Structure formats: structure tokens, C-alpha cells
């Protein structure tokens, strides 16, 4: 049985786009890639395990993706980043969108007891991510691309955890806060160009990353809902998006809660 060119690929916001997905096995990235595939996009999937990338690629092809390439590499590994990144974008050409979606939640308790674990959480979630973003920004701002007037987007998956350091996950939160500042600086730098930077801050998402938590409350969202929020943010060129939207007022309250009150909570 062979995978065929689909009979129908509805034109949509992803039609004809080329998307580089860094961390393609993440649940949010997978949901986003499916939405893009349904609109006929071409995708480059980057992740650690070839067999899993192959399975995701086959799924995206069946759902209408124009072309799918895979690159098996550990994004947390920062050695030889420049040639590796060049290899990724050589697969299907310079992307219209780069989605930086990988990350590791880790265990706060383990990080508190271990310098090694603290470093790992910061390296995966911030240091390596910043480096790929820098390379992506460089690729998207090549002079001939800047002149073609075509809109391009760097999408960064942040987290509400980055909005204020909290005792329950400040290592992960600090890494995401760093990423937030990095993306903001990048957006500042690219202001007025055809490259936009979108930071998406999901709250609680029902993914394998959170499978050990009780997910029955009303604050939990599905990866498909986050993917929809990313799509809308890209279409509108929004700088920072909370997903779902209600996290914006919640995090505003968390950010501005007075310390005497805040420190009494278990947040």
C-alpha cells in the first residue's frame, strides 16, 4: 500500500508554506503540524528519534502535507550547531515559519538537589533554544529574503511558568523567562522587517509531558486548542499570546500579587 498525493488539500493559511518544526514529537508541535499539513504545507521535522519522526511524517503526508522531511538530531546538543542547522534548512529550503517547540518540564525537587539537573533544565529549555533561534533569525534575515516582502515568522513556545519565579518550578520557569526575554529582544531587532516573532505561552496542556498530573480541572487545554491559538497568532502577527486566552488575566494577577501574599501560597 502506498501513500498517495491526497485528492483534496483545502487552501488555507498554511498553503504553500514551508515550516521547520524543532521538537516535532512534542504534542503541541504535532497538533500544529497537522493543521499546517491539512492546508498543504511542506514540513521539516526535527527530533531525536528517527522511527518516531517517520511515523509523524507518514501521518502528515496522509493528512495532506505537500512534502515532509525528517532530521533526527538531539536539539539539546549544542555542538556544531551551525552546520546542523544549515542541514535542516537545506532539506526543503528556507522556511516561512520556524516553530521552536521542544522542552523538558523536569522535576523541581530533583533540580533543587542537583546542579547537573538544574543545568540540564536550563540548557534544554533556554541555552540550546536561544542558539537555534539565533540561527533561525540569521537564516530568515538573509538580504535577498528581507527584500522579497514575504511574511515569515519565528514561533517560540514559552510558558506561563516564565512570568514569575515560583517555588514549585522556578528552574523551568527561569529558563522559559530567559527565552521570553530573548524572543522579545529578537522581536525588537526585527521590528519593521518582514520577520515576526510570536511567543505563545500555554498554561496546563494535556500532553505526555503532564501525564503524571491530575488533568481534570477546567484550566486544562488540549494540544489542538494551543495549535489553533498559534495559528491565529501567526495570522495576526501577535507578539505574545496566552493559550488559552484566560491565562493572561490569571498571570497578570500572579505577576502583580504582593510578596507577603504571594509567599503564603503554594503556587
Amino acid at each position, binding site marked *: *500500500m502506498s501513500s*498517495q498525493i491526497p*485528492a*483534496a488539500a483545502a487552501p488555507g493559511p498554511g498553503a504553500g508554506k514551508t515550516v521547520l518544526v524543532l521538537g516535532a514529537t512534542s504534542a503541541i508541535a504535532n497538533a500544529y503540524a497537522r493543521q499546517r499539513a491539512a492546508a498543504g504545507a511542506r514540513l521539516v521535522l526535527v527530533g531525536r528519534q528517527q522511527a518516531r519522526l517517520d*511515523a509523524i511524517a*507518514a*501521518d502528515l503526508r496522509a493528512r495532506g502535507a505537500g512534502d515532509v522531511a525528517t532530521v533526527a538530531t538531539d536539539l539539546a546538543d549544542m555542538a556544531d550547531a551551525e552546520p546542523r542547522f544549515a542541514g535542516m534548512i537545506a532539506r526543503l529550503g528556507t522556511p516561512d515559519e520556524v516553530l521552536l517547540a521542544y522542552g523538558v518540564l523536569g522535576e523541581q525537587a530533583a533540580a533543587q538537589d542537583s546542579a547537573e539537573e538544574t543545568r540540564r533544565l536550563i540548557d534544554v529549555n533556554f541555552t540550546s533554544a536561544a542558539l537555534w533561534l539565533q540561527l533561525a533569525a540569521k537564516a530568515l534575515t538573509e538580504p535577498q529574503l528581507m527584500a522579497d516582502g514575504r511574511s515569515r515568522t519565528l514561533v517560540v513556545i514559552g510558558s506561563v511558568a516564565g512570568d514569575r519565579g515560583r517555588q514549585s518550578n522556578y528552574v523551568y520557569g527561569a529558563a522559559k523567562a530567559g527565552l521570553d526575554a530573548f524572543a522579545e529582544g529578537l522581536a525588537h531587532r526585527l521590528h519593521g522587517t518582514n520577520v515576526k516573532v510570536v511567543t505563545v505561552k500555554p498554561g496546563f496542556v494535556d500532553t505526555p509531558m503532564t501525564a503524571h498530573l491530575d488533568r481534570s480541572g477546567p484550566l486544562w487545554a488540549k494540544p489542538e486548542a494551543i495549535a489553533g491559538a498559534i495559528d491565529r497568532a501567526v495570522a495576526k502577527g501577535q507578539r505574545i499570546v496566552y493559550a488559552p486566552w484566560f491565562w493572561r488575566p490569571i498571570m497578570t494577577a500572579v505577576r502583580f500579587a504582593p510578596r507577603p501574599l504571594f509567599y503564603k501560597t503554594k503556587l
Partner: protein
Amino acid sequence: MTDPFGTATTSWGRVSHARSRVAEPAHLDELAHAFRAGDVHALAHGMGRSYGDVCLNGGGHLLRTARLDRIIAADWSTGVVRAEAGLTVGGLLSVCVPRGWFVPVTPGTKFVTLGGAVANDVHGKNHHGMGTVGCHVRALGLMRGDGETLEIGPGSRPHLFAATVGGLGLTGLIAWVEIQLQPVSSSDFEAQTLRLPDLDGFFRTAEDSHDWPYTVAWVDCLAAGRRLGRGLFNRGRHASGGPLVPHGEKARLKVPRDAPSALLGPLTVRLFNAAYSRQPAGGAAARVPYGKFLYPLDGITDWNKLYGGRGFFQHQSVVPMAAAPRALQKLLELTSAEGQGSFLVVLKLFGPRASPGILSFPREGATFALDLPNRGPGTLRLLDRMAEVVLAAGGRLYPAKDATMTAEQFRAGFPRWREVESYRDPAISSDFWRRVTGDTA
């Protein structure tokens, strides 16, 4: 944090509960790993839409398949799709409908996984023409406790395939399903509703509806005497020509919490009466989206909570055609006298197309389905009396809907159950299987 050895799980009827160690593999290699890692018996669990305990495994390992929802290969020129077992019927429809393909068979909800559909060999309103979903399965990937993944099908290890279709997930983990879709030229249905004055009217109309691929009747189970079997007959077919639009993803309503169950009876009575009296005797065919025709309840998230915190049972049975008029009348008399039902009985005639499954529930005859709010011992007595009527007529109860049948009732309805037991993977078991086979594993 949840206790890794005791996550409480329930099923759609919310009367069966079990504590199990739960895993949610997101990739097939993780499924294999989780299966091997278990030192206790395992069971695959899809959307939890079966009503009783076929999807539960107390004290064991529950492997949720919902994240295994990838299409492995799709040939849109022939309509053959191979997908991981956790892909839902709804998830498949949203991809295949725009390309002019439809699932060959669907139950009354699209929130079931393909693996669950095969394990329960589900049927739908088109059983009289298309049989069960198992009739359209070309191949299955079956992950066995000994570490092998077998590719089985009607022509490849046919006995193991026959034990697996409708085999309640016991012969191994269904890792993927390859299915033949049916072509459609529209996502709409032509649908028609007819009034049924009585039970005879149901049989007559069903006989007259052979050229309608989809049929089902809703019958008032409180009406007695001359009006026994009063109801509405729905029939439909795929419209020809028109849009190819998948269902919307958003539910229209959500039941936020348990409703007082006393509300439900009078409410459905009023709704039905309104629908019945509004319905012209011979309604004209209307064009409706498939979601409206096939999945009327999917628009109400968590409708099972309408039955209140004690949950509900469903009786679904099938009896051979020759015994059907008498048996259905007896069942309706029982429920009418008790006044316990949720008011609406679903009736349908099953056709002669045989499923490959050994434990498959449908057979040629008439099927009868009724929800019963859990009101304690009285409800259990009624369920038992209904089961006895069915068995006396040579029929059987549907394991996917059942929470109460005895081992004797199961063995009487499924005399070939030992064949499936002989193919059961020793690393797999379920609450249902232990209940009806008396195995305490």
C-alpha cells in the same frame, strides 16, 4: 500527583469502576515498552465509551491508546487507510470526508477509537447492508505479550483474526487497524422520519426500508396496550453530490455536573411527545449533515451525566428474527410496567451479513437497546428479567454495553467463548472477562 498503582477509571455508564496503573503511550514503541514493563495483566483502553467493564482492568495495567492516533498509510485512490489504534472515528472522518471517503460502519458516537471499534466489533444503523466494522477490516497489527507484533487479517492467521475481531482486546494489543472506507459523493445524508403507531409498524417499516442503507427506530417504552411500540422510524442514505465537509469540532452543549436523575424521564417524555406529534405520518426526506443524522448525542459533551451520580445501565440485546416480534413485545411490556426506562428504546433489524468475529455480538435478527438509570436492586432485577427473556428467545446481550450479565447468561449467548479464551494473550485480562468466565486472574 496520582497514585501510579491506583488511578480510578470508569466507563460510559459510570456504574463500573476500577483502579489500575495507567500508561498513556504516545508512540507505538512506547506502547510495546509499557506492555512489556507490566508485571500484571494489561488491557488496552480507548475512549472509555463502552458502558460497563469490558474496558476496565482493576488491579492491572491500563494502556490508554488515545495518543496513538496517527495515520500510518492512506491510499486516497482506493480508500484503504491504515492507522494507529487510538485514532477515533471522528478523527478519521475529519481527514477522509474531504477526500470523498466515509467510514464503512460507525456506532452512534464518533468518539470511539478504531482499536475499540474492532475489539467490540461495533455496528451501526447500516448493519442490514454493511454488517459490522469487522467485515471491513483488511489487516490488524496485534502486539502480543511475548514481544511479537503479528500482522493478521482474513487471509493471514484467520483464526487469530476471528478471535480478535469482537475479541474485547483479549488476544493482544491492537496496535493498528487497516480498514476499507466507502466512497461518498457528499457529506450530507438524505434522511426521513416516519411515525410508527405500534410494534407491528416497526417490523413493517423496517421490511419496507431495504433500499435505505441506514435505519433505526426510537420507541416509546412507557406506552402500553394498543400503543405498545409507538415510535419514530429514521432512515437515511448518503446524499449524492454536494459538499464534502467534515463535522464541526465544537460541541453545542456540555453537561457540567450530575443532573438529578428524576429530571430525565419527564424531560425525554416531553421531548418525544413533541417530536412525535409534530412528525407528519410520512415525512419528506430532508438533507442534513452526517453529524446530525449519525451522531445526534455527540453535540452534548458528557451526556452520560444526565443520569445522575449513580450512573446508568444499558441493556442491548439481539434476538433471532423468528422470535423477535414476541420477544420485543415482552421486553417492552416489562419496561412499560416498570416505568424505569429512560423512556426511549432503540430498535433495529440486523441483516444476514456475518462478521468474521467469533465473539461478535450482532447476528441476523432484531436488536433492542434501552438506558436504565441506576436505581439499585430494582434496576438489577429488571435487567436480569430482560436478559432471561432474550436468552429464552435464543438471543444474546452486547458485552460492550453490559455491566451485569452473569457467567451463565454470557455462556448461553456466546457458546464459542472458549475459542477466544484459547487465543487470549496470557498477559491480558479485563474486569468483564474475569466476571463472565469466573477467572480470578
